[in-house]
């Protein structure tokens, strides 16, 4: 596709459940980012991948959050034992390399009930 694609667009889950959020970056982009945006706030950095490796995961809030990018393209953000406070818009972005601006997907809105 032409842009960053995130699936699903909406996800409702029960407290305590496990969820996976998927990001398909723009083809050929080596850098991939995950951000989280709560209502009324700006995006908050979670993790950055350069290729297959997580170059900076300092934004992951706790060990319930984990992200992978096994082949250097698609990435999955995994959240275990979800809590109501995890409810937010999860944004993925990609860039051609680590020195160019990032293009964002439309996000996945996660609601934990």
């Amino acid at each position, binding site marked *: 596709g032409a842009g960053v694609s995130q699936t699903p667009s909406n996800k409702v889950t029960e407290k305590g459940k496990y969820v996976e959020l998927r990001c398909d970056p723009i083809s050929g982009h080596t850098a991939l980012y995950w951000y989280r945006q709560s209502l009324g706030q700006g*995006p908050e950095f979670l993790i950055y991948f350069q290729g297959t490796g997580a170059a900076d995961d*300092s934004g992951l809030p706790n060990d319930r959050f984990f992200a992978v990018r096994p082949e250097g393209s698609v990435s999955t953000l995994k959240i275990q034992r979800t809590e109501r406070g995890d409810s937010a818009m999860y944004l993925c972005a990609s860039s051609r390399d680590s020195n160019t601006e990032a293009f964002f997907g439309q996000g996945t809105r996660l609601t934990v009930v």
Partner: protein
Amino acid sequence: DQQVKQNSPSLSVQEGRISILNCDYTNSMFDYFLWYKKYPAEGPTFLISISSIKDKNEDGRFTVFLNKSAKHLSLHIVPSQPGDSAVYFCAASLHNFNKFYFGSGTKLNVKP
């Protein structure tokens, strides 16, 4: 503690006039700044950027000004158009593009 702040949650401007969106930051080590625009149900879209070695960058109707001593940047849109109505986020990074700190956004409404 928020390192990038946008103190105006909303701004309303008449079509054809200038829109000025403001952003303040606390970390003097930030060296790259961007503005993103976001429409409802879409992800943020890159608009314009500026490096800390400059104090102004212009791209068509959009100009970003950086005042390092005041730790302040602003986005000027001239002339404003109804299609500019969106939420505008400023963002800052330390030494690279890899991790950005975003402000909370300013919702711009350009009235026809």
